[in-house]
């Protein structure tokens, strides 16, 4: 079912992460991504691992849910791991040497760390952003962060409004699609057998009603907005104004220290020759 995907879904809650300003979360997740990509040393990876676990714990989202969210990327992970194992050459003797295939210790190491990097990346960004931030406050934050662009006449508010509306209607459209599919199945439509062209043609009875109703909804929404005198971002005030608080400052400091620790750790550990570098 389409509705089973947990990646990119918001889980309502009241954890520390839920309460942070969405702008803090966007900036922090960018810094965190930088930190993940900077990490070269195995001890730095350990630090990232600990940091990511801490984030998950702070978010109050069950670990099982988060691991379930990783399911859709398993294929990509395995694919990149295989590429890395086979295409990395090292200085030492190959572990396996068979015909033209040579597998080096470095290749395996690199594959493992690549995979870890992607996993950390996805967990951290989804915990920071989608899992703990409602789509509405996310677009609010984007609007606020991109605010300076208004000076060069980029219609930031309009983009944010479009994003909000688009996100808002995803579940509605999913539900609508299921209803229409059921209605056509009740009339004997068959989506699962036949050649590719046949199957593509079988989608017409779903797509046309779906588009018709999506346009109808768009017109209705536009009318409703005009009835309430919507006229774009100019002079518009907000019900909930975004405001940085003490906890946001603390969060910024922590993430900055974390990033600094990773960068410093890389250098110091490399100079001392402790742990191996990937």
């Amino acid at each position, binding site marked *: 079912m389409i509705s089973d995907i947990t990646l990119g879904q918001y889980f309502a809650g009241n954890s520390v992460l839920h309460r942070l300003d969405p702008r803090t979360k966007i900036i922090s997740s960018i810094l965190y991504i930088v930190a993940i990509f900077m990490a070269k040393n195995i001890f730095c990876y350990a630090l990232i691992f600990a940091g990511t676990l801490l984030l998950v714990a702070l978010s109050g989202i069950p670990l099982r849910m988060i691991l379930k969210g990783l399911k859709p990327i398993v294929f990509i992970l395995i694919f990149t791991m295989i590429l890395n194992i086979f295409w990395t050459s090292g200085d030492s003797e190959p572990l396996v040497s068979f015909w033209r295939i040579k597998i080096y210790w470095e290749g395996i190491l690199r594959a493992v760390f690549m995979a870890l990097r992607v996993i950390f990346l996805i967990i951290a960004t989804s915990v920071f952003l989608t899992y703990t931030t409602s789509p509405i406050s996310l677009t609010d934050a984007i609007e606020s962060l991109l605010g300076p662009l208004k000076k060069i006449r980029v219609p930031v508010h309009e983009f944010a409004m479009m994003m909000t509306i688009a996100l808002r209607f995803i579940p509605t459209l999913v539900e609508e699609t299921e209803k229409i599919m059921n209605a056509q199945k009740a009339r004997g*439509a068959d989506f699962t057998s036949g050649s590719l062209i046949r199957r593509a043609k079988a989608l017409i009875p779903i797509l046309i009603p779906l588009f018709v109703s999506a346009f109808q909804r768009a017109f209705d929404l536009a009318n409703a907005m005009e009835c309430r005198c919507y006229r774009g971002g100019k002079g518009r005030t907000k019900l909930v104004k975004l405001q940085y608080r003490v906890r946001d400052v603390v969060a910024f400091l922590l993430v900055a220290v974390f990033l600094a620790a990773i960068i410093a750790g890389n250098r110091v550990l490399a100079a001392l020759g402790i742990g191996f570098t990937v």
Partner: protein
Amino acid sequence: MTMTKNKIELKDVTYIYGTGTPYQRTALDHVSVAFEEGVTTGLIGHTGSGKSTMVQLFNGLLRPTEGQVLLDGADIWARPKEIRSIRFRVGLVMQYPEYQLFDETVRSDIGFGPRNMGLSDGEVADRVREAAQFVSLPEELLDKSPFDLSGGQKRRAAIAGVLAMRPEVLVLDEPAAGLDPRGRREILGGLSRYRSENHATVILVSHSMEDMAHYCDRVIVMNQARVYATGSVAEIFSRAQDLADVNLDVPQISKIALALRQRGIMLEGDLYTVEAMYHAVLRYLGREGKA
């Protein structure tokens, strides 16, 4: 009615949504009901009582988590690959069916079901004409685009799309919702004609107790994933208090009859339609003389 047999039957059916997720919900809990051939049964119940789930079990859109759905005594899921053939025999009109219209003309949209059945062009054309007559859709509208029709006409076209398959069992989920009284009467009347001409079994979901009283022979009341009560229309509507307990209403006429009786005006008989009330009042006035 001499010999009656069960046309379609749910046997100890349980249906659970989202098994194993935090959103797990039991929509039907060990439900057993039978629908006699040629009888119109009304299905009522509060929102979330399991009506819509039940409706989708009859034609195999949903597969029971437990239990069986029997059509003419045979399990419809005996051969899951042939579930499509069941859908031609059990026609389902979903809520607001006008959202399923897609084809270039009304004619070919109504013909979608029959074409999926693999019928010849001539047969499809016959069935489209017949179905359009049942829902009183004028011939000249058939070559228009379905998107040019009015709301009520779209509804008729969509219902015709199911009737054109000539189903033996017809399941309708709120077929008249949102229509004006005349549109209601015409559509429900057409469905009654379809039933008597094809000796079809009809299952009608509705919130309108008046429609139930007028068009149904029997009523099934659903409450919280279980069957709360079954019986003839008269039996069900005489239990006004039981219905109120599960947040359901009785027809307005029944309420009036009840209020009159409480004031000492003893009308006779089971009163839930306007006609019955009319005769009961006349009889009452005739006996008592003019006050």
